[in-house]
């Protein structure tokens, strides 16, 4: 009797508690905004130790807890290259699949993702199956012509660029860039590539993606002694290339052909031995300030070493304006797109993402444990 009463009391209590808990609807699918908030980032995890299943994470770098930080994920197979549109709610992944996963017939494809659902909504086959699938590089996948055309770097090992019309969803063809690599947007509808001979090669395209004109600079890049890094920071139409020994070389990309400009030193003051380096080592913010990842006691071969400070430069004066010591050494740096209070994201050597206030250099938080393994490149979301 007593037991029955007790059981009844417990049941009553449980029912009361249940009435307060609203039953949760299962299978709830949310959509993301068409334009991502300014402090969201796209994290390219190349999954270096099993490259078949690379992925892109959409992360809110302002949020404090993991469930709030992670907004979604989509795939990018075989160390893909990725880009985002600012005029269409789309993201683009140039990737590779084999019919049996790691073997079989190869298919290279440009997959188009909807930013709101992270669903693949369309694709364009890249018929020559010669896509570069090397370490993630933002200039292996370049939007030009007001984002109408995309250039995808090929290396098999002859080098060329595939041209795809994103509006028509159509493969237009291939432009050979013999002895050269990557594509920096140049002029009205063109690109510049960096070449093994120490020169740069610029091409302007016709509307149909064929070559309209081409030009080579003089050989100015001292490959043997002090080469340019291949990934510049671009402000407006000026590309800023750091060199292995710590110079900055400006290249004007506003006209149809690249023009080599000023060379100045990143080492200002008593910074002997410091050099730029890492994986993504030079970037610019919405205001056009330059950020360079740097390490001390550089030596021949240290150009991929992690950086322990980020140095800021004003390109107008070519002077260093700040030094941000890092909490943990970093391999890659990225910035959110906003001008007001941009965040600097550092892929640290433990493969977590350290978030800093970009202007003051104040450490804010570390985003990690979201399933990432090797988040080599981070992009400020658009």
């Amino acid at each position, binding site marked *: 009797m007593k037991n029955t009463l007790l059981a009844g009391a417990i049941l009553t209590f449980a029912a009361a508690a249940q009435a307060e808990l609203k039953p949760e609807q299962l299978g709830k699918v949310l959509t993301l905004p068409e334009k991502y908030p300014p402090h969201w980032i796209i994290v390219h995890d190349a999954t270096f130790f099993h490259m078949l299943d690379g992925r892109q994470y959409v992360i809110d770098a302002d949020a404090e807890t993991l469930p709030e930080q992670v907004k979604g994920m989509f795939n990018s197979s075989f160390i893909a290259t990725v880009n985002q549109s600012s005029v269409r709610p789309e993201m683009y992944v140039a990737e590779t699949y084999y019919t049996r996963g790691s073997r079989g017939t190869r298919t290279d494809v440009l997959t188009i993702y909807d930013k709101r659902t992270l669903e693949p909504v369309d694709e364009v086959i890249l018929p020559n199956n010669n896509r570069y699938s090397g370490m993630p590089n933002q200039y292996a996948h370049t939007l030009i012509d007001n984002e109408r055309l995309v250039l995808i770097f090929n290396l098999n090992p002859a080098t060329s660029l595939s041209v795809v019309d994103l509006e028509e969803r159509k493969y237009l063809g291939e432009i050979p860039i013999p002895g050269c690599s990557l594509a920096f947007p140049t002029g009205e509808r063109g690109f510049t590539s960096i070449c093994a*001979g120490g020169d740069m090669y610029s091409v302007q395209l016709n509307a149909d993606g064929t070559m309209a004109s081409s030009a080579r600079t003089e050989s100015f890049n001292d490959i043997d002694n002090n080469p340019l890094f291949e990934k510049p920071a671009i402000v407006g139409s000026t590309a800023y290339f750091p060199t292995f020994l710590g110079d900055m070389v400006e290249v004007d990309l506003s006209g149809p052909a690249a023009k080599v400009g000023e060379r100045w030193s990143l080492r200002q003051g008593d910074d002997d031995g410091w050099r730029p380096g890492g994986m993504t080592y030079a970037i610019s913010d919405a205001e056009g300030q330059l950020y360079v990842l740097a390490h001390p006691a550089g030596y021949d071969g240290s150009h991929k070493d992690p950086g322990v400070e980020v140095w800021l430069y004003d390109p107008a004066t070519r002077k260093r304006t700040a030094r941000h010591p890092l909490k943990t050494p970093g391999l890659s740096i990225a910035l959110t797109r906003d001008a007001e209070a941009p965040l600097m994201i550092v892929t640290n050597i433990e493969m977590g993402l350290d978030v800093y206030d970009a202007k003051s250099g104040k450490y804010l938080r570390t985003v990690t444990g979201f399933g990432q393994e090797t988040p080599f490149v981070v992009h400020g979301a658009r």
Partner: protein
Amino acid sequence: MPGQTRTVKSILAAALLAVSLSAAGDDHRAKINYMLYCQGCHLPAAEGLEDKVPRMSGFVGYFTHSDEGRRFLIQVPGSATAPVNDEQLAELMNWILRTYSADELADGFEPYTVAEVAELRQTPDTDPAARRKQILEDLSKKNRQLRRSLAQPATSP
């Protein structure tokens, strides 16, 4: 005396070294340059990779049958932009031709000179694949051996 013997031996060794340098030293350097700057793609026996990397073994010598082909071998970006100086590039190309494709060389083939290489590599190709195709087409019109080589799928360059 032991000391004298050592001196004689040293002189002999130095003399041998000098002889070997003048006779085969350049070949040695050419082979090392091949290993450093060519074989990553063209592979150790210059066999190439079907549909991707041209085979040089038993083939590259055909290009010496025309002036255009001879120019192409230096203007192709793998040669023109290789990180070796003009002297070593001439030496390397001559070594490749002799080592991997002696049977296909044109009669009376004259080795590349340093001056020739220096001039040619200033104007690298803009579309090497198309130019290569054209050169081989032109050459195969008058060279039955090359025609046969191009027709064999197993050894297609």
